């Protein structure tokens, strides 16, 4: 026989002013199974809690109902009190007679009757509760960071510096991400490689960071603290362990191909690295453009390699790792040429995007840092920059502001003027958004010191005339039509999610927004977490970000990972689903309904049944509602409990 105790709180006059608490206690005493009922002014106070503890011990209570404020207020207080008195905390239920009764009704009789009904329902529920223990999971103190751009490297370094090992997976052949393509960086104009190279070297050398370049994450299973990941190493057709990085192969390879890294402005060899300071400094063969793979002949690299590292037979290898947390830092891209044909982009060689301008301006770029226009190599005297190309344009499906373009365009105008002192930069803009430390001052410098001419308005057309590009637009401030004959047109194209990261969201079961940027758990309060526990975001994978913001967010993600790793075990709410195998028919109707992919088939001797991974289950109960055999049981909210509440409330 159950021994339930009922504690009806007055909450001063908050409850007792409307509800006759003594009558509620009286009615409770009449419920079979209730062996104790009392009222008190404030059960949440120290003496109030002591009364509950005392009753639990003296009356050997097997369950407690506290009729008081909403469970969101003091459920944990009363559960803790029960635990201290030796009663399992999950055998405590709250009857909400304040927020949902005394505060919303005025008729004393009605409110008292309703409060008694709520108490009776909770007694019916608690009678059917079972003692539960919080779930405990081990934590593997090793992190996986996906993406080796500045954000990924920052997160990896912070975690490793705290003493936890990190695996850094980068899909490209080298670390650095977009930043490796940049020339100088706003707002300080320090050269990108001067700040990037030391950071990259630090990551590569760190004893606790293992860099897996040219690799991809293929599969992720498990849950926070205990993920199992499969990482595939793509074939580079060069044995990187044997390779000594002499790059003779790159020098001697006869095959020249346009380089993506140089945004098509320069060429690379079919074997080689993206840029001389690449880390790891190991070459990759571009299979699609290699003569050996096309025709079965050539093999110059294999012949020249002093250590015999070239291996045309190399295949993909997959390894498995266990990690406790994952940081996603897969970065961003800019609108591809194919997606944006306006302003003659992709048609006229002297219409380029800003990333290409970075390469033109880079001392290790295709022109050794001399700004030359692609068509004939001449130094442009007049350059038109167009901002918001694709961004802030709902018709093109990108209503958002790409955030970084105002700043890097001001930077481009400055750098151009420093190299071509008699040149003129024109900037078509919608608004200049320079909210950041030293950012507005930076834009002002471009105008005042470097003579950039800002024209507010949209460009209507760009077309070639007499070897130059005619840019036609309107200056909406003066209302005048403007026409500029330019040598070079630079488009600040919208920042977009990476194509390579699309599949990753699915593998990780992390949400993306309508544009494909990864979604944070809460836009203000949980900006580096995802809805999946143990998976965090860093940098421009979440939205367009500049370097300093990417780094800040990466350190935030690392701090979250380290907080997880500071514990030996993770505790989770035990109110999860469980299968009654004797009733389960194995239909698995529950499997596709579970939003957390927590349900898997399990083989018994003679048949299969569903089984719930308690680490993944979040306790929503969707499966319990879908189960036709009544085999899926959601602890704390079982069919039996809810039906008992229904029955009581209808009396």
């Amino acid at each position, binding site marked *: 026989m159950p021994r339930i105790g009922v504690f009806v709180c007055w909450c001063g006059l908050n409850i007792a002013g409307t509800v006759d608490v003594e009558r509620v206690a009286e009615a409770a005493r009449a419920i079979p199974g209730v062996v104790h009922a009392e009222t008190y002014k404030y059960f949440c106070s120290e003496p109030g809690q002591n009364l509950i503890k005392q009753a639990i011990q003296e009356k050997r209570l097997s369950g407690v109902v506290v009729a008081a404020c909403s469970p*969101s207020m003091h459920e944990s207080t009363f559960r803790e009190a029960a635990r201290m008195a030796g009663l399992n905390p999950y055998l405590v239920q709250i009857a*909400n007679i304040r*927020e*949902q009764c005394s505060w919303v009704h005025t008729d004393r009789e009605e409110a008292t009757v309703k409060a008694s009904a709520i108490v009776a329902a909770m007694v019916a529920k608690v009678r059917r509760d079972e003692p539960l223990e919080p779930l405990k999971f081990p934590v593997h103190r090793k992190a996986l960071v996906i993406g080796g751009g500045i954000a990924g490297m920052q997160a990896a370094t912070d975690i490793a510096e705290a003493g936890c090992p990190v695996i850094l997976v980068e899909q490209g052949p080298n670390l650095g991400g977009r930043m490796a393509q940049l020339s100088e960086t706003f707002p300080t104009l320090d050269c990108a490689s001067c700040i990037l190279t030391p950071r990259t070297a630090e990551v590569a050398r760190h004893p606790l960071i293992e860099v897996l370049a040219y690799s991809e994450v293929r599969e992720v299973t498990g849950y926070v603290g205990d993920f199992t990941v499969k990482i595939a190493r793509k074939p580079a057709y060069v044995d990187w362990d044997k390779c000594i990085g002499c790059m003779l192969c790159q020098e001697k390879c006869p095959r020249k191909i346009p380089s993506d890294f140089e945004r098509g402005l320069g060429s690379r060899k079919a074997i080689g690295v993206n840029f001389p300071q690449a880390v790891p400094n190991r070459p990759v063969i571009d299979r699609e453009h290699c003569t050996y793979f096309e025709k079965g002949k050539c093999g110059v690299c294999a012949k020249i390699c002093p250590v015999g590292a070239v291996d045309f037979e190399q295949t993909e290898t997959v390894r498995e790792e266990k990690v406790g947390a994952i940081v996603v830092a897969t970065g961003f891209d800019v609108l591809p040429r194919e997606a944006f044909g306006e302003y003659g982009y992709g048609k006229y060689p002297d219409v380029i995007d800003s990333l290409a301008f970075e390469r033109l301006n880079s001392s290790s770029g295709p022109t050794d840092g001399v700004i030359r226009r692609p068509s004939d190599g001449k130094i442009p005297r007049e350059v038109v920059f167009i901002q918001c190309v694709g961004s802030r344009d709902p018709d093109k499906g990108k209503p958002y502001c790409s955030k970084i373009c105002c700043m890097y365009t001001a930077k481009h105008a400055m750098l151009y003027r420093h190299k071509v002192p008699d040149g003129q930069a024109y900037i078509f803009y919608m608004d200049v958004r320079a909210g950041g430390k030293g950012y507005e001052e930076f834009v002002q410098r471009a105008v005042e010191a470097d003579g950039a001419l800002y024209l507010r308005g949209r460009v209507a057309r760009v077309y070639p005339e007499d070897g130059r590009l005619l840019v036609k637009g309107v200056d909406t401030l003066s209302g005048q039509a403007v026409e500029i004959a330019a040598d070079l047109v630079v488009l600040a194209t919208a920042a977009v999610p990476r194509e390579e990261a699309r599949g990753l969201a699915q593998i990780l079961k992390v949400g993306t927004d309508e544009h494909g940027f990864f979604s944070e758990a809460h836009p203000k309060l949980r900006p580096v977490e995802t809805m999946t526990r143990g998976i965090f975001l860093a940098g421009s994978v979440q939205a367009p970000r500049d370097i300093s913001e990417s780094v800040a967010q990466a350190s935030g993600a690392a701090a979250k990972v380290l907080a997880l790793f500071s514990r030996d075990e993770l505790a989770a709410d035990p109110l999860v689903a469980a299968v009654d195998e004797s009733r389960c028919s194995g239909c698995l109707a529950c499997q596709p309904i579970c*939003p957390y992919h927590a349900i898997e088939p399990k083989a018994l001797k003679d048949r299969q049944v569903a089984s719930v991974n308690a680490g993944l289950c979040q306790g929503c109960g969707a499966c319990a509602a*879908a189960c036709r055999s009544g085999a899926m049981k959601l602890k704390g*909210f079982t069919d039996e409990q809810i039906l008992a509440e*229904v029955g009581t*409330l209808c009396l």
Partner: protein
Amino acid sequence: MSLTWEPRIVGFACRWCTYAGADLAGTSRLEYPAAIRLIRVPCSGRVNPSFVLRAFQRGADGVLVAGCHPGDCHYTSGNLFTRRRYSLVKRFLEYLGMEPERFRVEWISAAEGHRFAQVVREMTADLRRLGPNRKMREET
């Protein structure tokens, strides 16, 4: 049955949105009829149609199933199942001869205390007009 008959509504409220919205109605001291009695569930997707039927069989005059707005479910997709499931259940109840006003599915967020109070007022008024549920109530 006395002359002062008052309807009885059983409400299933998801703990993240509607239950919290009902709490907000309380903290805002919004007055509404005492006909409603809530059962706290993790998600509206937890509510098995058999719970609704049971409530009617035991004499509830009205039943409310309420959760987060579509797209806002704490578990992302729970209420989408609720929506699909209960459009069928609603038709089934009407087929059984229950007046449509007796059963409502509502999306009420944690910020919509007013809306919660309003729904209870509306339902209570409708049920007062319709009178007791005699159709499905089991004789006891």
